[in-house]
């Protein structure tokens, strides 16, 4: 297993019945990360995805967190709950500060940025700020943390989120983290001359963006999912890639690595699964 698109398009294997939707998303995101590259990961699923990739196909993946740690390692069962805490610094090769790490992103050093989303729209714009009218918010969400900067600066942005109509909306209520804005050249015209969303990873599909219109496009379906399901869970019209494939199901070994990292409680605790 070396990439997300290696499943034969004709083989529609069922999804691993043992894998929960969050686990499917996290593992799919982990498969996108190539060895030797650099990933700026938010806390939660993005961080776990990076940790899984590092135990699997990308042992030389450089993982950074917004607290300023570069090249961290992961202790199974001790994954940090925040990007700025003692246990997020384990094994760091370098600790810079919380502004300079983003300035490095602005310089262009970081291959991937992994972020979550409360809402995402057809152009990959992400909202983690406000549901409803910004002047009179229905729900005040936490805000971007580092996600606005990651989305503005990293070379390839990966959005990881559950596939639900309340999340995949026609227009996000608030652009917290810019995707392709209004499509076409609008991102570039705004002054964002680099990067942009490359992938959206969900429990139902892997999506990318049309090269010209920058509209969201179904690139592959999760094992066991079909296009109708994806469309039903999306609040806008999706493009579909001409070479639509199914992703290979989550492997037992991937699941074991993920759970070992998160829980640290595999039976053969002496041996690290891989």
């Amino acid at each position, binding site marked *: 297993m070396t990439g997300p698109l290696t499943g034969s398009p004709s083989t529609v294997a069922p999804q691993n019945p043992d894998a929960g939707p969050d686990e499917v998303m996290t593992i799919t995101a982990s498969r996108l990360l190539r060895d030797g590259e650099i990933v700026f990961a938010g806390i939660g699923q993005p961080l776990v995805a990076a940790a899984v990739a590092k135990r699997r196909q990308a042992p030389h993946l450089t993982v950074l967190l917004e607290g300023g740690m570069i090249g961290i390692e992961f202790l199974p069962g001790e994954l940090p709950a925040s990007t*700025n805490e003692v246990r997020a*610094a384990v094994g760091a090769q370098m600790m810079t500060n*919380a502004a300079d790490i983003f300035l490095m992103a602005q310089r262009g050093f970081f291959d991937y940025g992994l972020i979550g989303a409360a809402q995402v729209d057809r152009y990959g714009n992400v909202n983690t700020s406000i549901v409803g009218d910004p002047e009179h918010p229905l729900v005040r969400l936490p805000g*971007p*943390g*580092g996600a606005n900067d990651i989305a503005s600066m990293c070379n390839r942005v990966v959005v990881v989120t559950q596939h639900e109509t309340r999340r995949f909306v026609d227009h996000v209520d608030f652009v917290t983290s810019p995707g392709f804005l209004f499509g076409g050249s609008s991102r570039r015209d705004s002054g964002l001359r680099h990067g942009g969303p490359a992938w959206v990873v969900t429990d139902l599909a892997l999506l990318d963006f049309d090269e010209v219109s920058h509209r969201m496009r179904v690139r592959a379906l999760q094992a066991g999912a079909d296009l109708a399901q994806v469309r039903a869970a999306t609040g806008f019209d999706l493009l579909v890639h001409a070479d639509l494939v199914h992703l290979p199901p989550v492997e037992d070994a991937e699941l074991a690595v993920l759970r070992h990292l998160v829980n640290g409680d595999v039976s053969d605790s002496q041996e690290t699964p891989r």
Partner: protein
Amino acid sequence: MSPRLATSGVEDARIELEGLRRAGGDKLTTAAEAVRRLVPDDAVVGVGGTNHARTPMALLFEVLRQGRTGLTMTRPLSCFEAELLLATGMADRIMTSWVGIGHGWGLAPVVRHLVESGHAAFEEWSHLGIGLRYKAGAMGVPFLPTVSMLGSDIGARLDLAKVTCPYTGALLNAVPSLNPGVALVHVQRADRLGNAQIDGYQLMDADLALAARRVIITAEEIVATDELRLDPARTVIPGFAVDAVVHQPMGAYPHECYGRYEADLDEFTAYMRAVKAGGVDGARAYVARIVAHRDHDAYLASIAPERLAAVRRTAEEMMPR
């Protein structure tokens, strides 16, 4: 210019600075005295650390103990300390990129309630946006250019001005300097002059301290200046930028301090239970319980010693060796 950008600028801060004499004096004092002298009503309060890391909790509890009104809290990532300041009505505005409780507790319930009901202002910036505001303030320039917040509703809602690079024509956001009225910063080590060393995460504390108009440092340890001289590259805040130094072991508790103690999740639980039970009043009751203690040492003395020992031990285990 939007009124929300109209916090006191680098020009005023510099003029004020020329009238201060802060180099070379002994600044050791108590949290009570430092807060009394340096945190007025209506101040813009720059809070060091991020999220639950190196939060200057002893100083914030002292602010809550003494009582203030009209405060604005600025912090790149905020945890439940933001809730305490807003719930008690001492602050009515936060400038931040993120507020959450963390550790599985999710959204910040009091901030949500007060912002959604229009009782508090959540001035939203990108993480780097806050960082560059401090950095501009520390560098003594009125703005810095960046691509952060371009195209987003964050920049639009702030009414950020744009600048065009005179060499390349590139369009950039101009982030205005922020020179907070007072910075509260917790560190591992300082001398009586205010020279301060931070272990582990540096976060944005050095820029914050250099930018702020007044600075209070709490330190786990007060050391002789000669001890700092053994490793001067670790000194990240110069004494001449500091007004008051407070010796406060476990000064970030119940939040964490790198190399010293992890966050005490039992306190997070206690806080969230209080809020679940009583909403904003629950948060106020939580504050009342803590500030009933004479000072931070008395509060610490009320915590079971084995809890304090446990958070110290696990922090120790995470250190490089």
